[in-house]
């Protein structure tokens, strides 16, 4: 059963008097437990697609359903609440808050819940444990390497046990070794913890780790290439 259903989704931007089409009637289904890679040249709309899945942007046309919810119909406030519960987002530039420790960064999404302080602490340490950084809990981002920062970001993304993990070029800013570590971690989350992941990337090595790869070009899907799980 499909966890994610995009039906006929289009996105256009208006700049001055012009209308710029970024996505053109894209239809995709993603099953639960899939690890999907979205590839395409820059300007193909893949990041936009990810943003739509995360609910931080709204499609101009078409519908998006995730689980039982048609997110294209939610209000801003509804989206925020939904996002907090269901989405874990991993950014290319990690985007950790510099004045917070690793622990506090991971805890951030939990502040939106009703958990007690102790419960939050347990969740955070668990998440940090999964990414292998419990001993760095009290370090600040500037004290961490790029790879470690991204892993903290991943911990932040999974701490609420979200329905869906979205990753935007997660290895884009990392060296080969750190990048590989991160991808291994993602694979583990998908294989061991059964997390559904949609990852945008332009790196074929990264795409190899996914269970399915979709190509986007100029706003449309070009071909579906099932790739063997590697």
């Amino acid at each position: 059963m499909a966890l994610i259903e995009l039906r006929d989704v289009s996105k256009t931007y208006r700049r001055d008097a012009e209308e710029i089409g970024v996505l053109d009637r894209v239809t995709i289904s993603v099953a639960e437990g899939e690890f999907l890679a979205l590839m395409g040249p820059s300007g193909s709309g893949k990041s936009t697609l990810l943003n739509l899945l995360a609910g931080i942007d709204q499609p101009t046309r078409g519908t998006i359903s995730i689980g039982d919810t048609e997110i294209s119909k939610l209000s801003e406030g509804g989206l925020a609440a939904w996002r907090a519960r269901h989405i874990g987002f991993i950014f290319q530039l990690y985007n950790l808050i510099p004045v917070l420790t690793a622990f506090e960064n991971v805890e951030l999404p939990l502040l939106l819940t009703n958990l007690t302080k102790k419960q939050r602490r347990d969740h955070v340490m668990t998440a940090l444990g999964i990414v292998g950084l419990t001993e760095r809990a009290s370090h600040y981002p500037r004290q961490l390497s790029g790879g470690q920062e991204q892993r903290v970001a991943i911990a932040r993304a999974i701490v609420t046990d979200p329905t869906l993990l979205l990753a935007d070029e997660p290895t884009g800013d990392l060296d080969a070794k750190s990048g590989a570590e991160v991808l291994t971690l993602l694979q583990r989350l998908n294989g061991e913890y059964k997390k559904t992941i949609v990852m945008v990337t332009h790196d074929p090595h990264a795409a190899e780790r996914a269970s399915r790869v979709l190509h986007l070009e100029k706003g449309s899907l070009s071909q579906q290439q099932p790739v063997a799980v590697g």
Partner: protein
Amino acid sequence: MKFVNLVLKSVRRNKRRTTLTVLSVALAVFLFSALRAVLDGFDAVSAASSATRVVTVRSTSMIFSMPTSHEQTIRSTPGVEDVTWANWFGGIYKDPKNFFGQFAVDPVSYLRMYPEILLSEEDKKAFIEDRTGCIVGDGLAKKYGFKLGDKITIQPGIPVYGSQDYEFTIRGIYRAGSSAVDNQSMMFHWKYADERSTPKAQVGWYVTRVSDPDRAAKIALAIDQQFSNSAYETKTDTEQAFSAQFASMLGNLNLLLGSVALAVVLTTLFVAGNTMAMSVRERTTEIAVMRTLGFRAATIFSLVVGEGFIVAIGGGVIGALLARAIVNAESLGLAGGFIPMFGVNNRNVLVGLGLSAFIGVAASLIPATMASRLKIVDALRRVA
């Protein structure tokens, strides 16, 4: 409550900027509290005024005197319970800069009229019995190191009192029981001054206690009517009205101090607003990330306002406490004379804190609104 940590950490983001802003607010609150303290000082005198005392002066101007014969006439006015009088001596103690109130009074009736002058019975007796004795307020005694038994010399400043120096012995140090009297003055025997005066038998002002506070104004008028068409016409007012006149002579204080206070608030709003705007502008990506994590626009708004509030309150606490410690008439050397005792009391501190809270919130409103209205995708796109 769980967001407090987040707000506190945000404040620590740029320590220098936060410090400068906190100090700015602290200064503003300090200044504001100081001004309010002065205004409150005047209000306190007014509020402590006795409802049963009225003051009589020459109608042409209070600087002219009245004859002692007025006393009997005042006493005979219906509604009058007791009468005393006093003269402003205006002498020089060592240096003209050492300004304090010196009053020639009739000790027995004056102390009876002003129960707020707190003096032990034996000191009272000693003062009454010594023609050249005097009593000084404990504030004055502290300022000049006066002790019981000290001899002080005062040079007359007003030609009426002659040119010879006056020698006094301190027979009592009084405390002020309310703001109706100040503790920075000195009282001595009117007879001592009158002996050396030319002309004699002149009184500066009369103070009368009336039987019924609700009829004070009418009794005051009745007193004046006794002397209308005489050579020494009088003007009698309630104690409260009389002190209000004094305050108004110094200038339109409310307007002046109010305008300054306004300027202070505006300046600080600019400074604090600037800080908050900069703080928000630097964090557009972070704000977008938090929105992505599920933080709502309203929450972002509150976090920014919370930040402004904390910074401003920090400054407010410093400013208010500093004002409390430093700003009071005694330590500033402004005690005595025409400006009443003032100090920053607890209420002023609370007002100061309230002001800083207002500044913090007001300055943050626009930056907070802009932060909450941020379009997530635009903000995320900016960096990469």
